[in-house]
């Protein structure tokens, strides 16, 4: 049954095509059915294929399906071929599974929107692109998916394009991603030059065969990672993600939390041999991840827009995934990606449910005490918050602990990794703190609702709450397939599943006492964060205000997101616009327009002369014709 895996991306593609062509004539109910069904079908096939993988003996994969030869020019060859191995399987399951739940949720959330069909067309297109990205068997096809999801991201951020800020946010996302993609493309080119193929199997063989030097590996790995920082919103290219919240909330959940933004992590895991070969590149990945994890968390602390807090939280959590990749725990990074997909999409969808209840209100300062109005949203949101905070027995705990344990274990080799671990722990406290700040400000405490909003307050319809419940279930349970190694290696089913793809070179062992100690520390910091949030926002709400007035500089810095947007604006955007203006005035207007206008004038002049011969009289034409014949004959005869 696993041979049909190549159908996975093409079902949503077919659905996109139908919706794009006939969408306007189809009834709304059918559109919702088809869009959801296509993704569900992909999910079913992914599940069947994944089960098939489990039964296949190791060494028999990756399954590769070569559909056709796409580019062939001399020795340069790219096939349109798909691949299915444990890593693709995990991603395909997450994309189609979480994607399906979010599609269903969207049916309720977007019910009254004018662009209903357009929305589902984009959403299906996104699913297709993302599945191509994760199932491509070579870097070039992966890049196609990579750009495809970027395009869908742009289209969906600017979905309400009549709103100026949404259109701008879409543009920002697109342009910032282009910067990263330049690096990614350069990386692919270097691989092509030195290895001669972009197929993952060929690349892995070349790397394990020692075909490329460490220095070259570092260069390629860092170039590829530049692409990852763009797509996965890491320092320095993270600025687009908070603005991306202008899009519909289910889009934020699917694209800007669960799937697309984790593409960078997937890519690094896919190229894990490269990053294992080059320790410098791996350290760069870990460092960028760790700094981003803490830095984004501090910004999440001061935001009042519920979706922006979640956006910074996403940036911070992806930072954790990169810590995992950087310290060599690729499986743990993927594991965090997988659990994060559940609880972060849950949090976003629950936030969407809150906005739905409050007529679109997103400012937490105007919420509070919502717990009694939203009897289903509240517990599900709380579960998501607990999971992300890293409280034991919830999924986020297992994955975060796996990453941090590995980071600590790597400390045996270099003190650098202790530093990474320290940042990770700091980020964990902040995560629990900002998440529960969010919970307490929204659902607890005094009501600060607008009286007008309060009149219309209502729990969301079933089509929206049932997805929340399902995701809440997974946010708790998803972690149990990857239990900490200390409980027994066999129980880390997730890591075992990924083993054939991810070759862990350095085995690191920690004593059982150390492992338990690390688990205790992780638990402690999670509760510490929650406790601080409780003190700050429930027991004595004056403290944060006092802190803000006592350290106005720090608070202002954090509240204004470290002025990074302003700095980028002044350093990159403004000069670009200024130089563009100069070039426009001098080159475009004078040289190019001059050439174009000159051609037009010359053509007009020539036409005027020639039109003199066109008298409209039949006899003149006959005469010219006759003369022509005579000249022709004369030429032939003499």
């Amino acid at each position, binding site marked *: 049954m696993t041979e049909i895996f190549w159908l996975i991306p093409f079902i949503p593609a077919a659905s996109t095509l139908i919706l794009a062509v006939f969408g306007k004539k189809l009834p709304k109910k059918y559109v919702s059915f088809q869009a959801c069904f296509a993704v569900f079908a992909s999910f079913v096939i992914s599940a069947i294929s994944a089960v098939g993988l489990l039964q296949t003996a190791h060494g028999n994969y990756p399954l590769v399906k070569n559909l056709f030869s796409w580019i062939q020019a001399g020795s340069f060859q790219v096939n349109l071929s798909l691949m299915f191995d444990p890593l693709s399987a995990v991603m395909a399951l997450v994309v189609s599974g979480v994607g399906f739940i979010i599609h269903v949720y969207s049916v309720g959330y977007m019910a009254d929107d004018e662009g209903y069909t357009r929305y589902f067309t984009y959403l299906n297109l996104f699913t297709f692109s993302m599945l191509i990205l994760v199932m491509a068997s070579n870097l070039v096809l992966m890049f196609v998916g990579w750009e495809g999801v970027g395009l869908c991201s742009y289209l969906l951020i600017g979905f309400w394009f009549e709103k100026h800020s949404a259109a701008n946010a879409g543009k920002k996302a697109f342009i910032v991603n282009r910067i990263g993609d330049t690096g990614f493309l350069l990386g692919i080119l270097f691989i092509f030059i030195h290895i001669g193929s972009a197929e993952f199997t060929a690349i892995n063989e070349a790397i394990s065969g020692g075909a490329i030097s460490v220095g070259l590996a570092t260069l390629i790995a860092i170039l590829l990672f530049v692409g990852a920082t763009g797509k996965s919103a890491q320092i320095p290219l993270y600025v687009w993600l908070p603005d991306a919240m202008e899009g519909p909330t289910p889009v934020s959940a699917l694209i800007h939390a669960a799937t697309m933004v984790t593409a960078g992590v997937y890519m690094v895991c896919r190229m894990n041999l490269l990053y294992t070969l080059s320790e410098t590149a791996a350290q760069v990945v870990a460092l960028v991840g760790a700094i981003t994890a803490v830095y984004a968390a501090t910004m999440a602390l001061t935001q009042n827009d519920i979706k922006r807090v979640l956006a910074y939280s996403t940036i911070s959590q992806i930072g954790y995934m990169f810590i995992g990749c950087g310290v060599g725990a690729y499986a743990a990074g993927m594991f965090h990606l997988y659990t994060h997909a559940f609880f972060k999409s849950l949090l976003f969808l629950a936030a969407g449910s809150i906005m739905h209840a409050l007529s679109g209100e997103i400012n937490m300062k105007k919420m509070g005490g919502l717990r009694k109005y939203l009897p289903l949203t509240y517990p599900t949101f709380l579960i998501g918050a607990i999971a992300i905070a890293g409280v034991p027995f919830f999924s986020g705990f297992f994955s975060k602990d796996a990453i941090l344990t590995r980071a600590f274990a790597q400390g045996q080799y270099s003190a650098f990794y202790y530093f990474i671990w320290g940042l990770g722990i700091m980020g964990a406290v902040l995560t629990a703190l900002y998440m529960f700040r969010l919970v307490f400000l929204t659902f607890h405490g005094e009501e600060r609702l607008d009286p007008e909003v309060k009149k219309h307050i209502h729990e969301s319809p079933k089509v929206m709450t049932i997805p929340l419940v399902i995701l809440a279930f997974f946010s708790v349970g998803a972690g149990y397939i990857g239990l900490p190694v200390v409980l027994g290696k066999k129980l880390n089913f997730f890591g075992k599943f990924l083993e054939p793809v991810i070759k862990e070179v350095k085995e690191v062992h920690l004593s059982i006492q150390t492992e338990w100690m690390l688990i205790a520390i992780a638990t402690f910091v999670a509760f510490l964060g929650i406790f601080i949030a409780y003190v700050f926002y429930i027991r004595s709400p004056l403290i944060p205000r006092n802190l803000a007035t006592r350290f106005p500089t720090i608070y202002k810095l954090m509240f204004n997101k470290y002025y990074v947007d302003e700095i980028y604006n002044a350093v990159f955007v403004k000069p670009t616009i200024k130089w563009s203006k100069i070039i426009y005035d001098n080159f475009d207007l004078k040289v190019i327009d001059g050439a174009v206008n000159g051609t037009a004038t010359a053509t007009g002049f020539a036409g005027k002369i020639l039109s003199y*011969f066109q008298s409209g009289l039949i006899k003149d034409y*006959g005469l010219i014709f006759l003369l022509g014949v005579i000249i022709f004959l004369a030429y032939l005869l003499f």
Partner: protein
Amino acid sequence: MIPTNYFLILSVVLFVLGAIAFFVKRDLVTQFMSIEIMLNAANLAFITLARSANSADGQIIVFFIITVAAAEAAIGLAIILLIFRQKKTIKSEDIKLMKG
């Protein structure tokens, strides 16, 4: 037997007459007839040479020319008729819609 040259001379004479008529006459119908004369002059030349060369090619071409000429006559006359209805004239000097 009449020599081949006589037929060719007749063909040239017919063609030149047609051409002169085309430039001298003023109404479209006569000009149209002169075109037909030129066509038939060409036909005559074709068929003469076909005969002298003992080949069927020229004769086949003549059949084509006759068919095309028939179609052309039908369309051409219809156009002239419509022009007359619109403009109340068939003088070729008065018709210069296509002047550039």
